[in-house]
């Protein structure tokens, strides 16, 4: 290990400051995924809604809602959900591979461009996607077994298992993109890297977890301030004179607006923090750790 963790954190921070465009892949990824979700919900709701007919008939009380579901449409919807999830995962993989490639370039040459994103994304998105899929299926199967154990014994089995998998396979995507490896070699290499560098990997994982948690308090703080100041500006209509008129829209609509504004602002702030600060910084730190670690 040439650099210690502090140097990795400090220099990674400097690299991020000089290359703020590493946020671009995360930005594009979340925007495209959001658009996809909107399209997807529109399709299901307007064209392929399996419950549409059942609501109409159920309201007459003659048929039970279950018997009148259009099963073919339901099947179609399930297939659609799965294919959409796969598409979204592929898109995320593309941009994630691009972000790792960009941070590799930024660390090695000090400067990176969006061409690097496209280059690395194109080269590695299938591998990243397949690895994510493999790990996901593996975790899902074990978690299903653990869920049964957890129901009987009430221990935190699932959290422990997911944490261990998260730590052990933390560097796998970085091994794939930076080391230019395939699926199996990437998994092997990532696992070996963990075995050779257990201590730094665990420490960096802890640091990232707690810094994320710490920064996560910022949206809560902002939300509370907006909520309390918003309440102050809710006008109290003068036509209120008795208890039943508390439900008057003059009072309820501004309150609802304040509430929605609070939620919207806190979601927006945490999204901005995640896309522009947390994700690029952690990507750079992990890339740096992988580049500096024992091979």
């Amino acid at each position, binding site marked *: 290990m040439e650099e210690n963790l502090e140097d990795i954190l400090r220099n990674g921070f400097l690299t991020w400051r000089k290359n703020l465009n590493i946020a671009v892949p995360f930005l594009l990824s979340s925007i495209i995924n959001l658009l996809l979700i909107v399209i997807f919900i529109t399709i299901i709701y307007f064209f392929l809604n399996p419950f549409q007919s059942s609501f109409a008939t159920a309201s007459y009380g003659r048929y039970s809602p279950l018997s009148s579901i259009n099963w073919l449409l339901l099947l179609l919807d399930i297939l659609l959900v799965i294919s959409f999830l796969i598409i979204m995962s592929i898109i995320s993989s593309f941009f994630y591979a691009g972000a790792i490639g960009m941070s590799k370039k930024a660390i090695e040459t000090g400067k990176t461009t969006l061409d690097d994103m496209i280059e690395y994304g194109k080269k590695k998105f299938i591998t990243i996607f397949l690895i994510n899929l493999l790990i996901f299926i593996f975790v899902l199967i074990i978690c299903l077994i653990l869920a049964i154990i957890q129901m009987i014994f009430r*221990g935190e089995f699932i959290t422990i298992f997911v944490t261990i998998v998260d730590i052990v396979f933390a560097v796998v995507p970085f091994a794939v993109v930076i080391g230019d490896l395939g699926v199996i070699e990437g998994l092997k290499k990532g696992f070996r890297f963990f075995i050779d560098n257990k201590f730094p990997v665990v420490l960096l994982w802890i640091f990232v977890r707690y810094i994320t948690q710490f920064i996560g308090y910022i949206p809560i703080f902002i939300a509370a301030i907006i909520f309390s100041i918003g309440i102050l500006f809710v006008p109290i209509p003068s036509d209120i004179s008795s208890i039943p008129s508390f439900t008057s829209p003059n009072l309820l609509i501004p309150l609802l607006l304040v509430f929605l504004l609070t939620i919207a602002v806190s979601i927006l702030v945490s999204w901005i923090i995640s896309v522009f600060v947390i994700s690029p910084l952690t990507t750079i730190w992990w890339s740096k750790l992988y580049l500096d670690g024992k091979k």
Partner: protein
Amino acid sequence: MTESIEDLIKKGYRNWRPNLILGVPFLLDTIATIIIIILILIMLYLCLHGPVSSMLESIYYSSSSAFTPQFIQKALNILLVVVVVAIIAKILITLVSSFFVAGAIGMAQKAIETGKTSLGDMIEYGRGNFISLFFANITISIIYLSITIVLAIVFLMASGALIFFYINITNVVVVGLALLKIGLATWILYVIILNVVFILLGIILIPVPYAVVISHLGAIDALREGYRFFMNNKLLIFFLWAVISAVDWGLGLVFSVVISPFYLLNFISPLIHLIFLAILFLLYGLFLLLTITPLSTVWWTRLYLDRTIGIKNEPSPPEVQPPSQEPPSSQPEIYI
């Protein structure tokens, strides 16, 4: 050359491992605190049992209103006694824990510098530093208290000023709603700001006890030095804080798995399960007190020592590095 966080954690662990006796001051501190609390409660009971029961009797048996001026006078006296006793208890507990924490930090310093420590070090360092640490702790308490009070006054005045907007309105319901919304808004802001300030202060003031014991500073100098130390080592202090929190969290997860087989006792009797759980939680608390608290004290001591006066005459660790690695890198530096 300062230590990296990896070395700090590894070497701190190696310092702590042969010196499990480092848990003793914390154990003694907890026992002493519990004894003080029990004594104070017994004293309060003995002092107030008579007056309070006579007051309750006067409420029961008087036909007219019980809240006469004498009654209120008595109630205020009792309140005064409770407040005075609470302050005395706080001072006593702070005094005792200052002694043991100073002792523990001294023991940790001894363990780091010589590799071995004993309870004699605890008494020596505790005796030498507990007064300064006590005044530092009391100053910190006063800082917290004054922030709470000043913020409360500011927010009360702000809400009072806002209520003036509704001074011309005669509609009772509107005024009530206005009070409700102003109260809610200022209360949320107050709680949030207080929490943020306290969390930040809690992290900023971590080095203060170490400044008292290791740098032999007085209360005010230690506060200043602790703040300066925090400002110079923000990243490392946050990192160590995160590591200690993560160890805590991980042990909690493991503990939840350890106690999970006892859930089967529920099928025999829920009461037995509860008793077992209580015993296990007590043991777990004891385990944390005897392992994690001293270990984190060693880590903080190491961090402070390393970044201020440096770790002197540290014995070489038992696992000696293979010599084939060392000479080529160190010799050129010597001869150049």
